[in-house]
């Protein structure tokens, strides 16, 4: 497990996501003025020009947008086969998160997914499994 990469969690724009995951919460950045979801997280809203944005808790549920199962070792720590899922957040449609699943799980497009929280080093990753 020590080979698995650790995310940067103290970036000025994205750190709030990792603070939330450490609390077992999924949180997205949202514009206070026009309510656009600013994902991937950033402060300034390119839709309306507002500097006012904040972190908002969302339900830890989503739907499966697409996935791929990888059969080659691309990086130490990720033993093939393994699967990467891309999940649309139910509370923030169009905002997506990826997750790792070992092996070749039985998946269907559009299936319901739920978040699980995986400790890794001093950080916590949001992962996704079939609901």
């Amino acid at each position, binding site marked *: 497990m020590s080979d698995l990469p650790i995310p940067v969690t103290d970036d000025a724009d994205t750190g709030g996501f990792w603070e939330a995951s450490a609390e077992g919460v999924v949180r997205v950045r949202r514009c206070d003025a026009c309510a656009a979801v600013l994902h991937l997280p950033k402060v300034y809203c390119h839709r309306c020009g507002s500097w006012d944005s904040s972190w908002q808790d969302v339900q830890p549920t989503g739907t499966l947008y697409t996935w791929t199962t990888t059969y080659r070792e691309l*990086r130490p720590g990720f033993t093939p086969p393994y699967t990467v899922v891309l999940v649309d957040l139910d509370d923030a449609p169009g905002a997506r998160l990826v997750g790792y699943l070992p092996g070749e799980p039985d998946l269907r497009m559009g299936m319901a997914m739920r978040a699980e929280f995986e400790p890794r080093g001093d950080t916590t990753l949001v992962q996704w499994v079939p609901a």
Partner: protein
Amino acid sequence: MSEAWAGRDATAIIGTGNTDYSRASGRSVLTLATQASLAAIADAGLEPGDIDGIVRCDFDVVTHNDLANSLGITDLTFWGSNGPGGSAPSAMVGQAVGALMSGQARNVLVYRSMNGRSGFRLGKGRLQAASGPIGGNGTYEEFFVPYGLVSPGQMWAMLARRHMHEYGTTEDQLGAIAIACRDRANANPNAQMSDRPLTMDGYHASPVISSPLRLVDYCLETDGACAVVITTADRAADRPKNPVYISAVTQAVIPDMQGGLASPVLMRPDPMLLPSTQVAAKLYERSGMGPEDIDVAQFYDCFTITVLVQFEDYGFCKPGEGGPFAESGAIEPGGSLPINTSGGNLSDGYIHGMSHIVEGARQLRGESTSQVAGAETCLVTSGLPITTSGLILRKG
């Protein structure tokens, strides 16, 4: 009808060059760049001292001053770089066009050189050697690499699965693209896959790398280099070979494009909406042409699915119908749009899109190993989906 673009046919490719393509060149990227550049300069009937502008790709190890020194160029008045990576080549030509039209240079050399197999292998991702915490500083890689999403192949595989889901695209349709490129490579003695035929049975026997994409849906990894020389249309008239006019060139992004490199593309509101739609619209406007005017195309083909979606984005078929178009025969010799006539990234060699420009120019000079009879125009596209760029070339 909008006013004609000032750059239309104002500049021309006058020389092309490339090295051999291999898995182990045994040479430095500087040597490869020098070989390809000298070939392109000689093809233009020029001497290295005639080159006063150089444009490179941001991923290239070789810099403008490395190459100028290697070639013995002493009067360099313009240089630039473009990227990221494979999205660069057409845009690099665009920088050359700008430099020529504004009088900042008279003859511009555009090149790409890489030991893409024996050196740094892009297919394992840009961060393959990174240690310590991953991401931050606007890269957003903290949302991808810790989950095992590290390579462009995985990203395109996920887009391919989505395209299959939305439109019923099939593996056989991807296979038709792989086979078309391979057949063209089989006619090209310099192609890495020159003597390796591919059938549909062979396609299905190829191992899955990241589902649904197989090894033969992936481009090659190549050691090699390509270069072209570009000048103004009036100077091009004095060169030994027929000029190949640049009728249009552009770069493009889409709204909500996302920052970072490849994987953040998946976080766009609609990941299937690609900037090639914008490049297509601008190229047709600038050239005064439409898809029906294009005789042959060199599509950037990091993966078969990348070509399939561009059939739609460049208007050769309706949205969602890239699959049926791929297996219609249109992309074969004698079809309405023969593609990737040297074999492309998939079967000629992966020079990050630069070989597509070389082959586009050769088609319009009658020098291709899969010559399209009577070809007057060629579309050339560069990498996507982060940003992209493209060219329309016209026979001189």
